[in-house]
């Protein structure tokens, strides 16, 4: 708003900013609240008084809490980590990496920072504080009730790590396969102006609107009986597809495919066609042009599409709940199971802790890839 004619009066700007703050509060509050709840004893977590939930007197009464000193030092460690991750890490990566292997150095650097943070925060800090707290008198006394026992229950006693592993398998599979297949198709569709390409896109659009339960109704009988009809091809040890992660990967890739090819197509359309034409003039075949000229410049689009594929696989409830059996269950159905089955408040808080555990990676994802997510959302809209 550079022009003077469009400048807004102060009152309007103030109202606008107040409403914006209100929206941010509404947007973040439920998520913030489950994070708070997950650290409290059941009595506190479901207290009807908001202040009791935040300060957790019952949790404190149970001997679990943080002193002011704990809080200050904890924030200091987190702050230091953020500074290292956003300032020191990028410059270190720049100075150490040769051309073409930047991502590898990035991965190593990120891992080092992560391990360092976990060590400092969960091992070194508690040890130091145990010594320091008694010395500081009132500053060292617990004021904020906080307990991590629910996380321990979820991850260790309830075998949530197993669900986590399954989720990891399914999401990795879906992202890799769906990008490989989708990139090729997206490129082909973007560069061919034929009626067939148009029809494929239209049919994909129709497929995108299908309720997923319709498709699962088609898979279930086939998957459950697959040992029978696969036997003639694969012989005695034909697998039952029902309950197998790789079957779910195939299903999710297919469900995701319409969206993937639309999105990648719009990204490829932004890459000038002259680029591969030039490569063709120099004697490349279509595949060579794709591999040598397009692949180096397509990564922003691929990363964005990969993010959305990841979200689809990670967030899915319907397909995984119906097609996987109990041993191979992923995280989302497992949490729903916990929530529906358990009746005591302790179990409810355990479910809350599980819910926070599954949300945390997503928040980091937005933190790191915010720009890609926004560009992905708008790319689809502006083109479609």
């Amino acid at each position, binding site marked *: 708003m550079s022009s003077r004619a*469009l400048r807004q009066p102060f009152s309007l700007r103030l109202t606008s900013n107040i409403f914006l703050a209100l929206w941010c509060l509404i947007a973040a509050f439920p998520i913030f609240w489950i994070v708070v709840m997950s650290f409290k004893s059941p009595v506190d977590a479901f207290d009807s008084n908001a202040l009791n939930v935040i300060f957790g007197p019952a949790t404190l009464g149970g001997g679990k809490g943080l002193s002011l000193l704990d809080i200050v030092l904890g924030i200091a460690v987190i702050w230091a980590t953020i500074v290292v991750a956003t300032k020191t890490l990028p410059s270190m990566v720049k100075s150490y990496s040769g051309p073409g292997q930047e991502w590898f150095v990035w991965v190593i650097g990120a891992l080092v920072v992560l391990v360092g943070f976990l060590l400092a925060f969960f091992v070194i800090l508690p040890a130091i504080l145990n010594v320091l707290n008694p010395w500081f008198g009132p500053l060292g006394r617990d004021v904020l009730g906080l307990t991590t026992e629910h996380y321990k229950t979820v991850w260790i006693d309830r075998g949530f790590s197993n669900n986590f592993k399954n989720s990891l398998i399914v999401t990795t599979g879906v992202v890799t396969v769906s990008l490989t297949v989708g990139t090729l198709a997206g490129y082909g569709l973007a560069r061919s102006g034929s009626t067939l390409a148009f029809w494929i896109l239209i049919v994909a659009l129709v497929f995108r609107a299908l309720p997923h339960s*319709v498709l699962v109704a088609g898979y279930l009988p086939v998957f459950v009986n697959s040992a029978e009809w696969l036997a003639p091809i694969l012989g005695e040890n034909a697998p039952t597809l029902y309950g197998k992660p790789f079957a779910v990967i195939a299903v999710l890739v*297919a469900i995701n495919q319409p969206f993937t090819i639309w999105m990648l197509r719009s990204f490829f359309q932004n890459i000038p066609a002259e680029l591969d034409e030039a490569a063709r003039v120099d004697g490349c075949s279509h595949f060579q042009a794709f591999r040598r000229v397009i692949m180096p410049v397509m990564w922003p689009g691929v990363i964005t599409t990969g993010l959305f594929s990841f979200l689809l696989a990670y967030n899915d409830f319907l397909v995984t709940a119906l097609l996987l059996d109990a041993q191979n269950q992923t995280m989302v159905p497992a949490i729903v199971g916990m929530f529906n089955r358990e009746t005591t408040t302790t179990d409810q808080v355990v479910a809350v802790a599980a819910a926070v555990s599954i949300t945390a990676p997503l928040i980091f994802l937005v933190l790191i890839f915010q720009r890609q997510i926004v560009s992905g959302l708008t790319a689809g*809209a502006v083109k479609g």
Partner: protein
Amino acid sequence: MNFRTFAAFVGPSVFMMLLFIAFPLVSVFKQSFYVTQPIYETVEKETCTPGFLTQTCVTEQVSQPMLDDHGEIITQTQYVGLQSYRNVLEPERAWRAISDGSWHVLSTINFWKALRFTLTFTLITLPLVVGCGLGIAILINNAAKTIRGPVIFVSLLPFIITPVIGVLSINWLFRGDGILTAMMEWWLNRDIALFAQAWTIELLMMLYRVWHVAPFAAIIFYAGLQTVNQDSLESAVIDGATRWQRLKYIVIPHLMPLIIFVAMIHLMDSYRVFEEIVGFSSQGYVISLQWLTFDYLTPDQAGNRSISRASANSMLTMIGVVILLILPLRRTWRDHKGGH
């Protein structure tokens, strides 16, 4: 690009879509006309209980599933025509209920109950999502450049969160004496039970959906706002247009394609409403079409899935999808024709 190269590029994707989307559709269509059931046989069974002097024996007719050599239940699949559709729709009862004008009876039939909720949900959330999205986009656009990044970050959270978890987080705020229910009770000075009747649950579901989708709409509208022609805005100011008039005659027409896009995506997605039912565990009060299929597909206590009914219900759900898509598809088709 010649056809063979094109086929090589697109082939794998098309193959997967055919195998995992088109083929299941056909098989669902077929399944909806067949029913697979165990074969039952009636056997005479003599049960004896020990008694004094002689045993007391009772002979009764028991119907039990036939077992094959391996001890597994023999099933048979038979063609039943439209029977599954009749089971889902219950046309006679529904028709009687409609002609009596008794809504209550109609809503005891799962399908009609689900259809009613799905349609209300879709139609009520649509204007709310577009309105809230537009509002948030304008607010973000008004804010100082430095805070836009963090604000967009916070706004993305409800959109990115796993839907079921999002619903649960809202649920935990309101369930029982959750803090927001407690706050409302304190404010209205009366007892409130939000999960004891259908309409409050529906309200919460719509609230959740708007919270979840409005950021998506907002981001798209915000991107659109960046390309509004500043010159025409300025000339409108010089011509004496108020803020409201500028919004109505310049900004909204400029955003119209995006509004249509968001509305389309939202219609498709909210017609599939499902996670809300699971997260609020509201199946006793409110169900949706997709949840109904899910329910038929979940094994019951005996471990049987009513595949046939699920298929019939799916096909009926599909009719809605087709109706939903006719308009945009006609438009795309016309654009495509015009483009040549």
